[in-house]
């Protein structure tokens, strides 16, 4: 009987151990990578800082950064990370690896709040980084940390139509015509879709003399033409391109160009008369870099986005560069249009979010009968 009891005990102990080792396994494979880079580089970094120039003899330990980003930046950061690693090696002599995580902007923001240890976040809209700031992971005025509203590159919303533009779509008011299928993701789940929505709102507002009811009516008509609301920007592109649904895709300019690059001559881009200046901002997640001791590298990483090389990579991936010299160089790539801004025309993200996208906001009113 005691033998049996002992056996039970051993079994249970073994099970608990397995469970714990399962939990620990992550620590095993992550800690060695993270903690040397966590503890010591902060020391080396501050030392080298003190000496004002990194000595080649003192090679800092390998560093690993995690960049949590939104969906359409995959290609951009793939190229940028390689370039930055090269730059880092040249300036400090150390090795740096940048891990990427991509997903819907809101989902990614939530993951960081819930404990995904991002060193930097590069999301689709300031609202999502504000939410991370609200959770106390970075300072409230994060947007002042870097130049240009912490937005090293911008984009805008354009139309992608099928070759020859059979429906003759030129501007936003063509989208509310009967028989035009409009593809956009769901503004509730997609950051890009919120830019789409606001651009349409801004256009309607301006052409309809800032009449709220008529503007809402315009949006209602527009969304009546939307047959599918995917959850993310990439989903919408797939629906439009692969599944052949709809006549016009509202997309990030960079997404539209990328689709053009991937799918060749079956599509063309239409630049509307008015659109919105989409600012996907970047920020350091203070709490995480302080914990891991990676602030130095994270800071260099984001600053590198503003350098000539960084700006060129952004422009090559169809983001509008901020640096004038690079902007001039890529001038022919982007169509000209007048742009609204979120801060001046919509009172900032907080206000736009409450008015349009929160529960009961204008977007909900479009779909709620009788309102």
């Amino acid at each position, binding site marked *: *009987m005691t033998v*049996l009891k002992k056996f*039970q005990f051993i*079994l*249970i102990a073994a*099970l608990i151990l397995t469970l714990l080792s399962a939990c620990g396994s992550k620590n095993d494979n992550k800690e060695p990578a993270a903690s040397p880079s966590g503890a010591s580089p902060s020391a080396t970094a501050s030392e080298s800082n003190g000496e004002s120039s990194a000595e080649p003899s003192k090679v800092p330990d390998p560093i690993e950064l995690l960049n949590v980003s939104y969906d359409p930046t995959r290609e951009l950061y793939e190229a940028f990370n390689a370039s930055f690693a090269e730059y880092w090696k040249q300036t400090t002599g150390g090795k740096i690896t940048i891990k990427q995580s991509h997903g*819907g902007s*809101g*989902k990614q*923001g*939530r993951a960081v*709040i819930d404990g995904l240890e991002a060193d930097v976040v590069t999301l689709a809209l300031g609202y999502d980084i504000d*939410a991370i700031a609200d959770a106390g992971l970075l300072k409230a005025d994060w947007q002042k940390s870097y130049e240009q509203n912490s937005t090293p590159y911008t984009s805008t919303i354009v139309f992608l139509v099928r070759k020859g533009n059979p429906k003759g779509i030129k501007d936003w008011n063509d989208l509310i015509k009967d028989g035009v299928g409009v593809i956009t993701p*769901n503004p*509730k*789940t997609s950051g890009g879709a919120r830019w789409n929505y606001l651009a349409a709102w801004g256009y309607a507002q301006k052409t309809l003399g800032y009449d709220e009811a008529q503007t809402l009516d315009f949006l209602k008509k527009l969304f009546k033409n*939307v*047959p*599918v*609301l*995917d*959850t993310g920007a990439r*989903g919408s592109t797939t629906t439009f391109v*692969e*599944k*052949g*649904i709809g006549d016009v895709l509202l997309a990030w300019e960079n997404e539209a160009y990328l689709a053009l690059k991937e799918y060749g001559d079956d599509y063309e881009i239409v630049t509307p008369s008015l659109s919105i200046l989409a600012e996907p901002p970047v920020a350091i997640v203070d709490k995480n870099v302080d914990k891991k001791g990676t602030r130095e590298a994270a800071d260099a990483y984001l600053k590198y986005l503003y350098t000539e090389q960084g700006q060129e990579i952004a422009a090559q991936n169809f983001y509008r560069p901020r640096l004038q010299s690079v902007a001039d160089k890529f001038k022919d790539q982007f169509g000209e249009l007048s742009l609204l801004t979120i801060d001046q025309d919509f009172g900032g993200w907080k206000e736009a979010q409450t008015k349009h*996208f*929160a*529960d009961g906001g204008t977007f*909900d009113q479009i*779909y*709620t*009968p009788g309102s």
Partner: protein
Amino acid sequence: MMRQRKADRVLPGLNLSLGFTVAYVSLIVLIPLAALVIKSFDLSMSEWWDAVTDARVVASYKLSLLTSFYAAVVNLVFGLLLAWVLVRYRFPGKRIIDGLIDLPFALPTAVAGIALTTIYAPKGWIGSLLEPLGIKVAYTPLGITIALIFIGLPFVVRTVQPVLQDMESDMEEAAVLLGAYRSRTFRKVILPELLPPLLTGFALAFARGIGEYGSVVFISGNMPMKTEIAPLLIITKLEQYQYSQAAAVAVGLLLVSFVLLLFINLLQRWSNRRLRSVTKGA
């Protein structure tokens, strides 16, 4: 050692197995689900109620329940047919068909969703055939139902199959001897016997359908009030950082599932008791 315990527990291991079971269930299922319920009560009672009875939420509950119900009904009919054919008949490729039934368990739901959308979209293999007839599948509740039929297929087949296998043919034989036609034998002798597993399979497929996300989200089109399923609404709430609201919608969904499952298990008990009495009688 045994004698110290109560006389009716001849077999060993109750404490160990039950203890472990309860501990494991608590750790993996109960505590996490409790966290969900607690989180949803960050909201006050009226806020909670508002969150669950919001027009869009109600519409999504309705859609999820209806499409799962239709899918489960289709699976009920065809699941029975499949189980019947697989158990009673011989035909080439039977083994393969039998194995394919489990495929929906193994295929990642997202892959299933993408594949089904590819087939049923207006340009797809079947979608292009149906479009001239004016039937739209992808991005309609019909598309959601088809995805849920795929997801729920194994449940009915796998609950009916074993019962059908073990069914004694004596009763059928007797019915035939008494002059009953085949269709009558089926209705009066076979079907009553199969009713409990059929209902069990139906309810499992139904419950699984209510919560399904991965396969549905690609084919549904996600139009608010029309093709927006409840799990998507949970995601939507989360994207807006409304954790407690998301939890409230999830708890509503969970309650439906729980009631359904309790019902299933009562059914199963009932079927066991019936089966036992039948075998005793025979």
